[in-house]
């Protein structure tokens, strides 16, 4: 690959930067595949020590893409957002699969059980994550920015500063919105919990 030729990922990130939300859909398979390969690799016994934390996965992916000239440094803030979003997708995927497995208890060979261990993905945790995912969708409808902050910080492991940079807002606003989003999600998840405890029918 020529060092100067912009890659597909760069072009898509540029589109995203110009406000083309569909670029995210096109980016997902490109970055997601790499992300999954990395997760699989780090779980398959070649751990550079600690690659299972989302931050490290995201950073590692970034560095790899940079190393292959598929990205430029200026794309970084967008990349963090995209990667966090993909991370969320990957995790929720696993959670849903686990729940599905519970219903039809057939062990899929090599189906990322260690990945689930890393996630601390017990049955109740899987349910919790799916509930969080749903709540996050509802939060996004009311305040897209708050939902993005949660994605970046919780699923992407980004710091306050990185989140601020990725979203083009001040760290102070990130902290404020994070507190609000967190409280909203907790309130929502608690309500779901209470509803579930009430006898039905």
């Amino acid at each position, binding site marked *: 690959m020529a060092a100067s030729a912009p890659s597909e990922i760069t072009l898509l990130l540029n589109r995203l930067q110009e406000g083309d939300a569909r670029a995210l859909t096109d980016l997902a398979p490109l970055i997601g595949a790499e992300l999954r390969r*990395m997760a699989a*690799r*780090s779980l*398959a*016994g*070649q*751990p*550079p*020590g*600690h*690659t*299972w*934390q*989302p*931050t490290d996965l995201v*950073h*590692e992916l*970034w*560095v*790899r893409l*940079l*190393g292959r000239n598929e990205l430029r*440094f200026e794309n*970084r803030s967008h990349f963090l957002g995209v990667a966090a979003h993909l*991370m969320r997708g990957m*995790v929720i995927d696993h959670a849903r699969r686990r729940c599905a497995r519970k219903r039809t208890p057939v062990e899929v060979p090599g189906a990322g059980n*260690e990945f689930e*261990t*890393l*996630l*601390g993905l017990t049955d109740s945790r899987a349910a*919790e994550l799916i509930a*969080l995912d749903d709540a996050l969708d509802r939060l996004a409808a*009311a*305040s897209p920015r708050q939902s993005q902050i*949660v994605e970046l*910080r*919780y*699923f*992407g*492991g980004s*710091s*306050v*500063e*990185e989140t601020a940079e990725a979203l083009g807002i001040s760290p102070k606003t990130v902290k*404020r919105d994070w*507190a*609000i989003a*967190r*409280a*909203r*999600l*907790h*309130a929502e*998840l*608690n309500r779901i919990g209470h509803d579930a405890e009430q006898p039905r029918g």
Partner: protein
Amino acid sequence: MMQNSRADSVFAGAIHLSGPERARFLTSECGTDEALRASVERLLAAHDCSTGLLDRPLFTLPPEPEDVWSGRVLHSRYRIERFLARGGMSTVYLARDEQLAGKPVVVKFLHSWARQFAWLKEKFRGEMEALARVHHPAVVAVLDFGETADGLPFLVIEYVEGVTLRAEMAESPMPIGRAARIIRETGRAAAAAHATGVLHRDLKPENIMLERPGTSEERVRLIDFGIARMDEPSREFNTRMTQFAGTTPYMAPEQLRGKPSAASDIYGLAVVAYELLTGVRPFPATSPVELYEQQRAGVKAETLRRHGVSEAAARVILKQLSFRAEDRGSTANEAAELIAEALLHPVRLVWTRRRVMTAAATGVAAGAAGGVAWWMREPPLGPHDRVIDMPLPSEPLEHGFQATGEIDNRVVSNADHTGFEALRLISDSQGGYHRRLTRAQVAAAQRLGWRITFDATAEEGILYVNLDMPGTPARYLFNVVATAEGPGFVRLPTAVVPKSLGVDLPLTPKPGGRHRYVLGVGPRATTAEVWVDGIHYYSGYKGLTDFRYRRGPEIGVAAYGTKHAAGVVWKFRFEIG
């Protein structure tokens, strides 16, 4: 939506208030709007009672409980005394070896969650076995390893009495000699580990222990090898930057990409050296991504130079910080040795410059008397003055050479790209490096004869060697001329104006065009002999009298019907007698 954003801002204003203050604030903000107040109260309640779900990033491993092993005895031998420290992968305890009269030892356990990962345990075991095979005085010794009854791997290592290099660095700037010694010993230790297949992966001042610090018996002990290192405290929100500052700055680019090698340890060692000498790290990044970008952009010698590090030493250190692993030294031992040597012997012939300055200040007007007095102070010719080497691939200017014309150079890596071995001289016109000779050296050279040996190739234009001693009838010029067709030819010019005239000698084709050339004049002789690759090529070269500068031995490049000039030099030596 309106309600939401209003509730948001009231909530954001209230979270940092407590008790009655918060109640007053809510009353004043919400007034009679019961719905708003209820929304805010609900958010505040959710804020105050955390479910733990969002309190740390997903995947963060559960914190390891502190001190679960004290008082227990492992292998009926090691009595765990107390908790020492905890990292991301392991916990460290102080213990006593009851079979060795209660000798203190350190026991390191993999974290309990590691039990779930067969591959992790396997890897830990593999590295411990390898590390146990490393026997080097500067590598902390592995005394034993095993597994607890419930399957947790542990490692028993020597207890090192001393201080960390980090603590010593904080005290005061480290003298260059001491820094050089520490770097050398650390490099040797890392090389010893590499020889058994163990990478350190985390060379940093915290992991370099000094026994008997500051004394003449100071000794380096390298600790914390491999996978069970202590550097990765589990991450919490908002602490990434701090932890980043603690460990990642010492990581090589390929390590950031997840592929550490022995060259990554060399890189880490160079970061330590840089920090030891300047007090700061080469790359001021705040995240791994930023670090990677900075590593790719490279670091300049300025900071090192400002802290009194010679150009040559700075060059060697920066070489080990190369972005590409293959551009660094070939072994940790060699890299450390090069750094230490360059630090310990920065400029061998400082007096050359002082003498030149003296001469300049005396000036022509001062007359012969001043000149005589000056020459009288000349040191007599010792064995050291009979051989002048240009140490390669280092900066000629740092070894008593002076620049001639317009000249620059670049280091050239060896064939398998594991290190540097030569200098490429480049110029857009003409230039090179020369060494002045003392009058005693000139006299000895005329009496005993002299010889210039150089391994080189001309890549573009001409690569030349020149010797023009005061009191001789001519200067001797040796040109290796690059041609488009092949390795070129040797020209021994007899005149350069109005046009270049001289003897042209063909060169046998050779891959890379590298040859060993020798130009020499016998005792009390005035004509030169030429050898190429050990074969006697020519005798009776009388030299030329155009453009005399009375310079000592010189090597350089000149554009000759070309836009630029370039040549590679592997060796350059001037010998008297």
